[in-house]
């Protein structure tokens, strides 16, 4: 095979891997949207917050250290212990569940039956709040997250492809792990929503929450549960992105990238989120590779949105979304 084609294939594979990570964030959106009709803009910030909390717990940082130091003139920064990553992940999960409960009790309980667009704006507010809150709690410097996921080039793939084509493909171990975890996560979520009692209740609420309420399903519980699951997905996404590029503010912008993913796949479909993620991941990498050099590069910033925009004009409900029927 000619070099250019091989290189293109490598870009394609890397795009697939990046797409998996987009799909991970998009999954969280789909879950909340399906169960409560809330389009949760704060999903990306939740991922950032989860990653910040995880790093903070692992390093034994004192929460609000910056604020405490400023108010009381003290100099506290660390408790002086390190918590193993497994335990820290569980603790962080606890924080995310607590967060889900607070969000439900303080915000979305009071906004039931509001217009979807009002709910959307409320989540933008939530995103802003959590961004500031996370920074005040854990500090805004860029942190390194290391929970023991292997990183760097996968030697095996490099060797095999070198043997076959005379050109070693560069594929990051982290991306492979992410792909595996995402697959497991999707299977688990599908099993959960199809075969457990809570999952069935969740689908009932998604279908018609008044009818669900009338057969005795606790809306409050289901919504807290859904937000917790979304928090868990955010945590996984936060760990992956955090390990890849450090825990920093730009992590929350990933959420914005997940939006076109959702629009491609349809807001209500879990497989749609995966397929959409892969299309966007591959699409933007290939576009940058093929067309990018002609127009000055950095097309990754907007390609996903424009693709989604063009796509929507022809199929407003996305690839797998439910058909939108309007009644007067």
């Amino acid at each position: 095979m000619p070099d250019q084609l091989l290189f293109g294939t490598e870009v394609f594979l890397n795009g697939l891997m990046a797409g998996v990570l987009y799909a991970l964030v998009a999954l969280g959106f789909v879950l909340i949207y399906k169960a409560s009709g809330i389009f949760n803009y704060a999903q990306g910030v939740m991922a950032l917050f989860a990653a910040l909390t995880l790093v903070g717990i692992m390093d034994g940082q004192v929460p609000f250290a910056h604020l405490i130091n400023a108010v009381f003139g003290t100099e506290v920064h660390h408790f002086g212990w390190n918590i193993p990553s497994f335990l820290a992940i569980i603790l962080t999960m606890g924080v995310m569940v607590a967060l889900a409960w607070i969000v439900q009790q303080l915000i979305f309980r009071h906004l039931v039956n509001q217009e979807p667009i009002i709910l959307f704006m409320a989540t933008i507010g939530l995103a802003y709040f959590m961004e500031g809150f996370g920074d005040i709690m854990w500090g805004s410097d860029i942190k390194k997250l290391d929970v023991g996921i292997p990183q760097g080039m996968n030697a095996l793939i490099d060797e095999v492809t070198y043997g076959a084509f005379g050109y070693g493909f560069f594929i990051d171990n982290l991306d492979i792990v992410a792909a595996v975890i995402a697959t497991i996560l999707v299977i688990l979520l599908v099993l959960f929503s199809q075969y457990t009692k809570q999952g069935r209740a969740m689908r009932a609420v998604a279908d018609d929450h008044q009818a669900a309420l009338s057969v005795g399903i606790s809306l409050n519980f289901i919504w807290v549960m859904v937000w917790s699951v979304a928090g868990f997905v955010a945590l996984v996404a936060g760990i992956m992105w955090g390990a890849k590029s450090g825990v920093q503010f730009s992590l929350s912008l990933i959420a914005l990238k997940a939006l076109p993913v959702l629009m491609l796949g349809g807001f209500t479909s879990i497989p749609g989120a995966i397929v959409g993620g892969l299309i966007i991941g591959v699409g933007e990498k290939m576009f940058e590779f093929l067309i990018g050099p002609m127009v000055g590069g950095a097309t990754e910033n907007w390609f996903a949105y424009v693709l989604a925009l063009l796509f929507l004009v022809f199929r407003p409900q996305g690839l797998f979304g439910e058909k939108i029927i309007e009644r007067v």
Partner: protein
Amino acid sequence: MFYREAGDFKTSYTDDNQTFPIKFDRYRYYFVLFVAFCVIPFIVNDYWANAVLLPFLIYSIAAIGLNILVGYCGQVSLGTGGFMAVGAYAVYKLMTAFPEVNVFFHVLLAGGITAIVGVLFGLPSLRIKGFYLAVATLAAQFFLVWLFNKVPWFYNYSASGQISSPERTVFGYAVTGPHASAWTTYLFCLVFVTICAIIARNLTRGSVGRKWMAIRDMDIAAEIIGVDPLRSKLSAFAVSSFFIGVSGALFFSVYLGAVEVGEAFGINKSFLVLFMIIIGGLGSIFGSFAGAAFLVLLPVLLKNVLVSGLGWPTDLAAHLEFMIVGGLIITFLIAEPHGLAQLWRVAKEKLRLWPFPH
């Protein structure tokens, strides 16, 4: 007692149709205009102009523009920053290409160019709605910012990639560039704000505005009663983008002077203006002003209290500002979805009965 319709007799249709039917409102409006045009220019200094008045006036125009689109026509847009960038770059190209033309017309033309771009990006609104559209407008935001970064023609091939406004005068007084004084820049912006507010107010209470509101409340029903969705939606996009373009042009040429597009017109600007109209009140011209004033004053106030008063580090104050703004958005959406404008309306309603509530 003094705030009432009674005793204010209307003898002609023009009287009946005036913007402020209540006498007290009318006098208050003249009073505000008088203070803004005849008092403030004489007492304004550099700090007040640059920290408070100019951003307030310029953001007010942007907020009015976005309010027409979101509050009156119901089409949520997250592309405000991108459209402001179009206005800024349009005015820059015009100022440098035709230096002999008055900058006033450049700003208006920049608004016109932005309106064309806005209509272009508004076309998908005919197919998609709600937050699908909100996300689609993100395409405008990111694409436009990228475009102005990557195509050297837009920034006249300058080495830094920045654009900076040359000095231009109106009636012999510099309004842009380093030699512009506080009062000229203030008055220049104020003229635009006044014109825009009057246009917006009259558009929204006329037939165009009623069509927008019909589309907002339910577009299918509006179509059935004979409102053309194509024309009303696109006209909302055009008018809204015109205002946003004017504000972007002023933001660059008068307020900042030099601009790097990713920094000045990023996604955060879109959110800021959106927050202004949520806090101020969706579907209200007064609300646009109130929201702009609120979000311009809040950081200034926080900075003065926390950094200068208590001696906290600036980054802490910035984070706290994020929290407060986010919290306020949620609070307003829950407690008062119509924003500050509604509080104002309630106050007026109370005032009408005062001091005899029954």
